């Protein structure tokens, strides 16, 4: 009788230990957060900004070489666009769960593959988590677009710049930022894996 009780205890102890460990693990880590949550306001803001930017570029191309297509006549667009991205950066920083983006290793490999004179222009990743980095790069790209428009003087934005701005450049960053929000939204749906 005593022997049977001893055997049962021997088997139960590791099982209870494992159960306790799993319970503690599950209780301590109910969910893990490696990225910030989906933000509907940011997704809507990005979509609206994409439409406004595409319309602006088309309008500038239509007026290229005319006074209405110069930077001087349209600088308000850039102030507005960058202010809208600033709001998104502030929201992203507020909701972030990380202090940095672990893409630094990739960036080192990327810059090693580039010619020396270009290498210095890539620089380092801006501060913040990866989503914030994307938004900071987007803000910087609007700055480049503004500098381009200003440097063009009376020429304005020619037709050949459409894809450079909207397919690459600003457009690529807007699509990336929207894709992040879409992926987060999808991950929040019940049954998402």
């Amino acid at each position, binding site marked *: 009788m005593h022997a049977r009780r001893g055997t049962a205890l021997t088997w139960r102890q590791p099982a209870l230990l494992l159960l306790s460990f799993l319970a503690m693990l599950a209780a301590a880590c109910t969910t893990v957060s490696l*990225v910030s949550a989906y933000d509907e306001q940011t997704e809507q803001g990005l979509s609206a900004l994409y439409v406004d930017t595409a319309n602006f570029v088309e309008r500038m191309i239509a007026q290229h070489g005319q006074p209405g297509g110069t930077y001087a006549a349209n600088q308000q667009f850039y102030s507005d666009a960058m202010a809208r991205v600033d709001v998104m950066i502030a929201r992203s920083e507020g909701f972030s769960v990380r202090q940095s983006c672990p893409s630094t290793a990739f960036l080192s490999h990327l810059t090693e593959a*580039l010619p020396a004179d270009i290498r210095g222009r890539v620089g380092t990743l801006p501060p913040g988590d990866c989503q914030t*980095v994307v938004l900071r790069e987007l803000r910087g790209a609007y700055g480049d677009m503004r500098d381009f428009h200003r440097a063009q003087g009376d*020429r304005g934005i020619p037709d050949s*710049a459409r894809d450079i701005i909207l397919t690459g*450049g600003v457009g690529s960053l807007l699509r990336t930022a929207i894709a992040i929000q879409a992926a987060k939204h999808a991950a929040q749906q019940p049954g998402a894996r």
Partner: protein
Amino acid sequence: MAVDVGNLLQSMIGAGEGLGADVWNKMQTYAVPELHKIAVQIAAIADHITDYTPEGAKALFDMQVKASVGVIAGMTEMTLLAVQTAINAILNAIRGFVNGAIGFALV
């Protein structure tokens, strides 16, 4: 001045291999097409250089560099999201196992 889009893209993809095969494979479905678009636009700046002032061309190039960095950071964010989803699925399974074994909702 002609830029070889294929070589440029290959340099960008080759750099990504330093991340490790698993992560890079997951990133390829979005990152490579997007990086390809950017490489094509860098070539287009050179092809239409007479349309732009020197400062204007430099600003367009800097914009493509920022886009490349942004795509990489964006892909990293989506990879972290995939890892987070997988970890939470495992934690859910543990939760189900623990609650089932105990007989009530402990966690």
